[in-house]
């Protein structure tokens, strides 16, 4: 019989051998994958089958996301929008995760997950409107580009601070649990974000409150210029799950089928078992951090090239879809040229669209405008009338 001691946390066996747990395992936690680099299913893989219809839709959206990223990035370079950040290299994470969720699952993104919105039906025009901050922008022009949000699509508005969404996701999950909804909270974070206190707070709360939350960490190797070797000394993020009492898995984030299966399974666990789950998706940030960054300043150009060409998640999935006879070269060029055309039109339209009326500067700070804002609005209107040359044109007073 193993001798045991009683402590507040329960019974624990004791030993007289003084043994420290090593700082790392002899073997890193393996990465779950289904498709090899050539887009062929690895024999004897566990995975949830994906129909032709679903697979084609997933591929189309991954390719559309690529085109969208390219064109918006160029629009910023041309000075037409002030800022942009791409998800290049992370298209499988974006689209396959979204495909695996139900529309009732509430998504709390970080900022590199517009593909989830795209999947759910946010139009190219809606993306463009937010980037231009025009009158049709649901965010009313108040935030920088890419800070999308849609209550209709259950996608919380993006905020720049890192990891703040994680404890909020625990609260969202708890609400869904209390309301007995067949839904969970799904929240995204990068490798860098896991160093924030809110990561600890979010996971710990979700675990203690037994909240249905799927935490998805996009480990893309870089937090702006900070490589993961400067971010943590653990075996990535997956090993942190157990520290919180949270079931976790590491998956090849560039494998759309593996991502799909993992997120489907995690979501089921979260909802049926009313528990949080942590998924670490291994990937690479092919693009710069944002249009304010030139990543060749801190990493080798051929490293970027390697991931872009040889480890491309879109090409990999395309091969599988094509091998099944579900996609052709003709489909490809049609999709890309249509997407490109739609995007250019969306940008042109968004650019010409009326600006937000000036009153939207003052609305929604509170549910009802308080006196101090009424006064400030009156004061500003007077000023704009008196000295219009001091202010950008087009904002209806």
């Amino acid at each position, binding site marked *: 019989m193993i001798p045991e001691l009683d402590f507040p946390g329960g019974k624990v066996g004791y030993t007289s051998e003084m043994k420290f747990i090593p700082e790392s395992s002899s073997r890193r936690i393996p990465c779950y994958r289904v498709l090899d680099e050539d887009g062929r299913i690895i024999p004897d893989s566990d995975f949830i089958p994906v129909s032709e219809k679903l697979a084609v839709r997933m591929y189309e959206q991954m390719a559309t996301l690529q085109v969208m990223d390219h064109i918006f990035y160029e629009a910023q370079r041309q000075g037409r929008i002030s800022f942009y950040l791409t998800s290049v290299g992370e298209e499988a994470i974006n689209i396959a995760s979204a495909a695996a969720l139900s529309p009732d699952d509430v998504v709390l993104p970080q900022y590199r997950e517009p593909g989830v919105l795209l999947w759910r039906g946010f139009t190219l025009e809606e993306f463009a409107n937010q980037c231009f901050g025009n009158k049709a922008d649901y965010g009313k022009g*108040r935030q920088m580009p890419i800070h999308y949000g849609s209550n209709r699509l259950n996608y919380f508005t993006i905020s720049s*601070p890192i990891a*703040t969404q994680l404890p909020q996701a625990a609260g969202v*999950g708890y609400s869904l649990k209390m309301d007995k909804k067949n839904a969970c909270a799904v929240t995204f974070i990068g490798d860098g974000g896991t160093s924030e206190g*809110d990561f600890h707070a979010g996971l710990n709360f979700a675990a203690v409150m037994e909240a249905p939350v799927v935490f998805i960490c996009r480990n893309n190797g870089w937090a702006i210029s900070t490589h993961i070797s400067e971010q943590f000394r653990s075996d990535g993020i997956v090993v942190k799950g157990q520290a919180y009492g949270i079931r976790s898995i590491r998956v090849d984030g560039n494998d759309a089928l593996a991502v799909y299966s993992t997120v489907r399974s995690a979501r089921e666990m979260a909802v049926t078992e009313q528990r949080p789950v942590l998924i670490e998706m291994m990937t690479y940030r092919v693009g710069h951090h944002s249009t304010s960054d030139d990543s060749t300043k801190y990493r080798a150009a051929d490293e970027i090239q390697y991931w872009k060409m040889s480890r491309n998640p879109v090409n990999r999935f395309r091969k599988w879809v094509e091998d099944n006879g579900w996609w052709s070269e003709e489909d490809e060029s049609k999709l890309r040229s249509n997407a490109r055309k739609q995007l250019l039109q969306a940008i042109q339209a968004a650019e010409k669209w009326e600006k937000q009326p000036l009153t939207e500067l003052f609305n929604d700070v509170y549910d009802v405008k308080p*006196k101090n804002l009424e006064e400030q609005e009156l004061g500003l209107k007077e000023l704009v009338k008196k000295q219009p040359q001091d202010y950008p044109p087009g904002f209806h007073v």
Partner: protein
Amino acid sequence: MAALLGRSCRKLSFPSLTHGARRVSTETGKPLNLYSAINQALHIALDTDPRSYVFGEDVGFGGVFRCTTGLAERFGKNRVFNTPLCEQGIVGFGIGLAAMGNRAIVEIQFADYIYPAFDQIVNEAAKFRYRSGNQFNCGGLTIRAPYGAVGHGGHYHSQSPEAFFCHVPGIKVVIPRSPREAKGLLLSCIRDPNPVVFFEPKWLYRQAVEEVPEHDYMIPLSEAEVIREGNDITLVGWGAQLTVMEQACLDAEKEGISCELIDLKTLLPWDKETVEASVKKTGRLLISHEAPVTGGFGAEISATILERCFLKLEAPVSRVCGLDTPFPLVFEPFYMPTKNKILDAIKSTVNY
């Protein structure tokens, strides 16, 4: 602080009628202390909205100040629960709940420990509605925290951090002066569709006893109250400091100075009109708060009143506040804005 008031053991009671004071309501109720009044408000809040929750450190057994007594037993551990020791998690979790349409009434154990949650409050809660173009909001969030001097609290059990929060568009900041006020104001905060920070004067949890109506009532936010009428000088304060100021007003009256005393109640957004009308009448303003004088909320009131009442002012605006030091332990009696410091300032303002 008890020594400063000259009452070492007596509970403070709130006279509802002194010469020149206005009685707000003729309703009576049971005599309750501050924590009991708050407790009543929480019971009513949870009873009237099934999607409301109370959580924070140690709230399950009733809380370190007994404000949450009986809630877990009555409403269940799913709605009233302890959280891990993590303020950023408490507020973040609360924002998530509120964003889903629930009322999240969170407790931060001492205002001194609210800072880890400052990012969630300032960058998230305060901007949640605005940044989303009103697609989302976390108006159901109310953050309660005990604040202020308690006689022996030192650096980390005595702070008055209200000024930090008054600088944040998008949240409201409310501070009650008494049990009856606390119940009505807290219910208003909970039901207000904006995130609110509610600071409770911990000194008054047991010390203050007042008749508190037993029913569900709300006191409006952003409405200051003239709790004592006068003609020579306007005094503005909030929370526990009003008791001290009221004593100073009584002493001043003996020397022929008629003081008008205003309870601001809501610091953000604050009722400028009531203070302005009073100062236009008296021509003098004195503000008093426990928080350090530099950058304290008194500076905002002073600057605003100067803008609006400059030609009516007979003397500079006076601020009788805490010193610019961390809140000291053995030196507390020297640090505090005492009755006599206020009285001296009243006299020098009137004799300017």
